[in-house]
């Protein structure tokens, strides 16, 4: 979805000249992780912001291993600089309307509470980056800018393209009060791989939140794989030296029939027949709630035609047996596809089949998948996944980007409990804070999963101690932003199971903890409070073993496909 930043084109991926890591800052696009923000999914919202340049004050502590890091950092800054020099005279820059920043993906992470409003903080802090090199947030904002004619052209282009496709047809309003779904334009500035400005893009998106269930849409399911499946495919690929390619289906134009009577109202100013006319949507415009589902269905139809089948373990994985090229796996995550297989020709064959049916952007070897940065060393057969961009954005959204780092996510020996007195008032940001950590812990940061598993238990009766404990996690992340999971060996599936007997001090129930590794890296973690009260440690562990075995058997089946 995101345009590759400056370096993507220049870094040779998987070149055979020695151990080569693909270092790009593109994982700073967290956009994909939050499908909720899909409305603003205007290809490349990662460009909207940059990780705090000073996110690593404590970086250079003389450790030789930090050298690579420093380069990383410089590259990041270079990227920023290149953005600022794009095609505008200084005078124009001065005229920049200091409009509000478009809300960013991580902005949605934190609801703005009454007192602590990290989102607000973020926006204020972002003033320094404002300028004409950034896309306009709203139409009014774009109109007030000196580069409005360029945006206007973008609007025209988009409307023309949609008209040609027949995305909608004009109809008369049936009655004066006929309900329509509003639309708006999302703006973006497009750059090529060198960071040069290529075009001003506007895209019409319906405001999906105005859609009424039943009237405008029924099902909204979109294919998103299990976190364990995602990890497993990388783990297996690392050990077997598979080719892993990434295909990004462009979302701009969809040819999936919407199958619902949905009416849209175009934004003011778009020339479109009589004022009494509205648009009936024929195709699922990107931004409608069902767009991803319809695309997923189309994908499935195509894959079936191709002869790929779907193992029952995960509905988002397809396996394709080719007589010559062997087996190729396709992992579908909404618009993003991972195509992995031993033989390059097989992978290419799948990719060309996909690009025949969809308008795609072929990224070749995977660098950045749903915001996870994939770093690979083909010689050593290792893959590292990390999510530094999301971590940095999260810290920023929580206002903890300059917090003192801590060594562990939770202080040892602290046993949180519900005292049920001195409760904190409603409307605090605890829930948002805890929730935002979940997606980080599932794939790239299993080390915080203990906190992520335990902290939500106190959402309903929040006390000062819980809030204090929750603060520890961002502080820990602050010190370990660049860590991620590494698949470094060819070790088969290993499971580890443990239980904390009576860990829940109120219900006296135990918690099962299960972790499994493939190729030396974690693929699945499970943490579940047991349903029965165990009367001894052995009993608690026995329960845990039963649960973990079931989990492990599923994993075994998944890996058996590979």
């Amino acid at each position, binding site marked *: 979805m995101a345009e590759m930043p400056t370096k993507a084109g220049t870094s040779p991926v998987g070149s055979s000249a020695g151990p080569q*890591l693909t270092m790009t800052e593109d994982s700073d696009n967290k956009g994909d992780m939050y499908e909720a923000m899909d409305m603003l999914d205007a290809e490349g919202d990662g460009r909207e912001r940059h990780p705090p340049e000073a996110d690593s004050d404590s970086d250079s502590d003389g450790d030789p291993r930090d050298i690579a890091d420093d380069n990383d950092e410089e590259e990041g800054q270079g990227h920023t600089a290149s953005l600022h020099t794009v095609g505008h005279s200084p005078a124009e820059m001065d005229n920049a309307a200091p409009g509000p920043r478009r809300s960013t993906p991580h902005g949605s992470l934190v609801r703005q509470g009454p007192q602590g409003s990290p989102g607000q903080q973020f926006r204020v802090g972002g003033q320094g980056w404002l300028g004409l090199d950034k896309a306009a947030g709203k139409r009014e904002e774009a109109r007030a800018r000196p580069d409005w004619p360029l945006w206007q052209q973008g609007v025209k282009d988009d409307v023309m393209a949609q008209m040609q496709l027949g995305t909608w047809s004009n109809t008369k309003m049936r009655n004066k009060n006929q309900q329509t779904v509003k639309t708006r334009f999302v703006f973006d500035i497009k750059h090529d791989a060198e960071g040069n400005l290529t075009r001003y893009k506007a895209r019409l998106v319906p405001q999906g939140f105005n859609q009424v269930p039943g009237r405008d849409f029924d099902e909204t399911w979109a294919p998103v794989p299990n976190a364990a499946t995602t990890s497993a495919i990388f783990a297996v690929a690392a050990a077997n030296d598979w080719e892993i390619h990434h295909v990004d289906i462009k979302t701009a134009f969809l040819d999936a029939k919407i199958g619902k009577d949905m009416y849209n109202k175009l934004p003011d100013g778009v020339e479109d027949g009589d004022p009494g006319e509205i648009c009936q949507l024929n195709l699922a415009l990107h931004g409608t709630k069902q767009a991803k589902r319809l695309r997923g269905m189309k994908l499935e139809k195509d894959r079936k035609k191709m002869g790929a089948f779907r193992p029952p373990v995960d509905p988002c994985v397809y396996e394709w047996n080719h007589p010559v090229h062997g087996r190729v796996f396709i992992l579908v995550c909404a618009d993003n596809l991972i195509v992995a297989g031993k033989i390059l020709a097989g992978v290419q064959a799948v990719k060309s089949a996909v690009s025949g049916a969809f308008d795609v952007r072929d990224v070749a070897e995977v660098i950045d998948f749903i915001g996870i940065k994939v770093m690979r060393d083909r010689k050593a057969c290792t893959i590292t996944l990390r999510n530094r961009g999301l971590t940095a954005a999260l810290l920023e959204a929580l206002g903890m980007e300059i917090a003192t780092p801590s060594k562990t996510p939770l202080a040892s020996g602290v046993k949180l409990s519900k005292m049920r007195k001195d409760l904190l008032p409603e409307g605090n940001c605890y829930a948002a804070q805890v929730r935002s950590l979940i997606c980080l812990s599932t794939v790239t940061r299993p080390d915080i999963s*203990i906190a992520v598993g335990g902290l939500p238990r106190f959402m309903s009766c929040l006390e000062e101690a819980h809030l204090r404990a929750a603060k520890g996690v961002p502080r820990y992340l602050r010190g370990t932003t660049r860590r991620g999971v590494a698949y470094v060996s060819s070790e088969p599936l290993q499971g580890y199971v443990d239980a*904390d007997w009576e860990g829940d001090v109120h219900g006296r129930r135990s918690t099962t903890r299960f972790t499994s590794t493939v190729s030396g890296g974690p693929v699945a973690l499970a943490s579940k409070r047991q349903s029965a009260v165990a009367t001894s440690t052995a009993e608690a562990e026995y329960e845990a073993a039963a649960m973990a075995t079931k989990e492990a058997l599923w994993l075994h089946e998944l890996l058996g496909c590979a």
Partner: protein
Amino acid sequence: MREDNHSCLKLITNPEATGRTKLVDVAYHVVRDYQTRGDVAFYFLLSSEMPADGLTKPLPSPFFKTFRDAIGVGPDLGGAVMAQW
């Protein structure tokens, strides 16, 4: 599969029945089936070496480091580690 509780391992590998095991919910005995069928093998692992241990309780920092390494969270291969924690 690694376990750190001897009594539990015994329970899984032998059809023992004592006064206390009769209180275990029948549903959990499914693990014995899997074990006898050979779908899964259980081994003992010391608590101190157990990666899942760090998932059950907050560990002090030196143990936490060991835990982190054991579950496969490492410094990334580019050496891009921040401070050495």
